[in-house]
């Protein structure tokens, strides 16, 4: 690093001592057409021949070599801060070593035997590639079917801002044989049973009440409670500030999005009710090997997100930061009551730390203004690198669908697995078997889970990162006007009246909706979601610090963390 820096500075030196030639002087010596051509090639070129980088026409507090050195110091300070944070110890739950047949580990897309246990040599090839990091070793991982593994080498990438992706950690996932794991699996079976039940009907729905009762009574269920009990109001939610209040679906998933001169209405293409997949063992096994025998059956009517199946399909095909870019557009645009059909956004006030709040002469734009907000909101999705490291290089947790296969094989007495009684004896499992004749976890997507390990969750990490940025940019205490809920058919929106809902609470709920939507689809566990929201938050805070250090105006970011702690980044 030191050596490289000297090289850069040495290269710039002749410009300082040589003939100082302004850009105007340089180009003035050329014909007009030649000047245009030269300009086209020069825009992205940091140093032109002839030392013209020492141009004298710029003004400002730091110019030329002084600016270059200040920019260099800023990068060095950024790297020093990253280095000073050190490396955490990464710990898994130990299941991979505990079970030589790898029944507690991710193995999708590798070859499996008739019970769905992974080929040991194939698993070892995966471990070898992860250990060496050589691209050729990843090419040598055997495939069990058509699908390929999803981007394991992303976990080896460096990054250019915030901390190194390996400097974050997630606690060990629940162990395969634990009551905690069983509790999460019981919740997933209930989610499958309730996929076609409207969220707004949970309080009166007998099945939702049974779900809440059984989850309350489990020996180690760690979802949110009210008065010590899981209730229809806390069912399938996360205990984040505001996320237990009001309707299940965040306002930011329902309100129309002003999109420049265009407008995005939020009705979506969803799936027909009762269209679960992988409920037969042969289909399940084919999917574990990486094949996709089934196909989706779509509802011809577009609907607002009203139930678990809608939410599952929304998070099936969403475009990385789509939920948060929508939220950013809704937050930033002023209301336009007379404009049909958009009516504008909600005009959320800026974060109290924004230095332009008190300015009489300037407004923010590329820094502290609209373009800054949009860029920041989307670019933190780079958080995927850190979670891909956790997935592939630390935890390799099995997907819930694979656990469902173990439950099925165990209950059919084809093999004996150390599965906790809380799930084997659960009402949820009994009801799934009654309804579908299987102990497998019914899945929303024909292909089941993606081909990467469960823990942490990519969606939840990006959700945690993007929502943290939005809370840092806007005033999270602002109350959202004109609250809405979908009508029963999901074909329109009806006004919602109830206690006020704040921007911060509905952003937390949005993150929870996206993270939990993946659980409802059957592809993630509760711990994947909640621990990855926290991971994303930590990544975003590190990036916010780097951005702040790069700005002339000063300012700060004030927000409430997922655990309820208020913080100021300055």
């Amino acid at each position, binding site marked *: 690093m030191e050596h490289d820096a000297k090289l850069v500075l040495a290269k710039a030196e002749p410009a300082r001592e040589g003939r100082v030639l302004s*850009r*105007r002087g340089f*180009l003035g010596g050329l014909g*007009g*057409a030649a*000047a*245009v051509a*030269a*300009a086209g090639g*020069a*825009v*992205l*070129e*940091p*140093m*032109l021949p002839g030392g*013209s*980088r020492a*141009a004298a*026409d*710029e*003004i*400002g*507090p*730091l*110019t030329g070599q002084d*600016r*270059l050195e*200040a*920019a260099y110091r*800023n*990068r060095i300070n*950024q790297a020093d801060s990253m280095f000073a944070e050190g490396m955490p110890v990464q710990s898994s739950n130990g299941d991979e070593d505990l079970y030589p047949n790898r029944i507690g580990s991710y193995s999708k897309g590798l070859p499996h035997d008739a019970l769905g246990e992974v080929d040991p040599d194939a698993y070892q090839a995966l471990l070898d590639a992860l250990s060496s990091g050589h691209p050729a070793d990843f090419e040598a991982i055997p495939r069990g079917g058509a699908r390929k593994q999803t981007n394991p080498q992303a976990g080896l990438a460096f990054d*250019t*801002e915030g901390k190194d992706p390996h400097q974050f950690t997630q606690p060990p996932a629940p162990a395969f044989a634990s009551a905690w794991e069983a509790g999460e699996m019981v919740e997933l079976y209930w989610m499958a049973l309730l996929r076609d039940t409207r969220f707004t009907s949970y309080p009166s729905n007998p099945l939702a009440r049974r779900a809440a009762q059984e989850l309350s009574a489990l020996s180690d269920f760690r979802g949110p409670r009210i008065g010590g009990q899981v209730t229809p109001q806390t069912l399938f939610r996360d205990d984040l500030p505001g996320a237990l209040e009001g309707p299940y679906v965040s306002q930011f998933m329902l309100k129309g999005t002003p999109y420049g001169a265009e407008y995005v209405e939020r009705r979506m293409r969803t799936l027909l009710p009762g269209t679960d997949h992988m409920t037969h063992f042969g289909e399940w096994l084919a999917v574990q090997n990486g094949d996709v025998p089934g196909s989706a059956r779509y509802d011809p009517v577009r609907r607002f997100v009203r139930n678990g199946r809608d939410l599952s399909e929304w998070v099936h095909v969403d475009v990385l930061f789509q939920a948060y870019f929508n939220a950013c557009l809704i937050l930033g645009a002023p209301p336009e009551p007379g404009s049909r059909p958009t009516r504008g956004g909600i005009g959320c006030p800026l974060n109290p730390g924004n*230095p332009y709040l008190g*300015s*009489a*002469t*300037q*407004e*923010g*734009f*590329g*820094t*502290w*203004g609209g373009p800054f907000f949009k860029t920041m909101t989307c670019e933190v999705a780079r958080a995927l690198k850190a979670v891909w490291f956790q997935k592939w290089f630390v935890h390799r947790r099995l997907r819930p669908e694979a656990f469902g296969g173990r439950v099925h094989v165990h209950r059919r007495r084809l093999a004996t697995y150390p599965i906790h009684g809380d799930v084997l004896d659960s009402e949820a499992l009994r009801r799934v078997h009654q309804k579908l004749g299987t102990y497998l976890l019914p899945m929303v997507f024909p292909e089941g889970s993606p081909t990467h390990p469960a823990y942490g969750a990519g969606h939840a990490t990006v959700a945690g990162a993007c929502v943290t940025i939005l809370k840092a940019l806007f005033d999270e205490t602002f109350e959202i006007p004109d609250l809405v809920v979908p009508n029963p058919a999901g074909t329109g929106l009806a006004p919602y009246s109830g206690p006020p809902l704040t921007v911060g609470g509905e952003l937390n709920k949005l993150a929870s909706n996206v993270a939990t939507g993946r659980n409802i689809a059957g592809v993630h566990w509760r711990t994947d979601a909640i621990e990855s929201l926290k991971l994303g938050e930590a990544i975003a805070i590190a990036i916010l610090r*780097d*951005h702040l*250090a*790069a*700005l*002339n*105006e*000063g300012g700060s970011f004030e927000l409430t963390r997922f655990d309820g702690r208020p913080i100021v980044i300055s």
Partner: protein
Amino acid sequence: MLDALDSGHPADFEAIPLGGARKLTNPQAGLAFDTEGNDPHQFAQPAPPAFASAWEAGEAAGKGNLDPPPSCLRYLLTPTIPGSI
């Protein structure tokens, strides 16, 4: 304004007189560092056409980078002809 741009002090930007309701758009963004790629000041653009140049006149007439402008444009842009601009 020039004093504020030269000093880079946020307070100096606050001292710029405004002529009406609108504020200036984010001049301090030009002083920011960045976290990746080159420093924002390491890029250059060629000087734009000079105010008094035929090139500038050609652009004002809406014909893009024409230097020199075709003779018909030169005729149109000659300021001695009343009503030509």
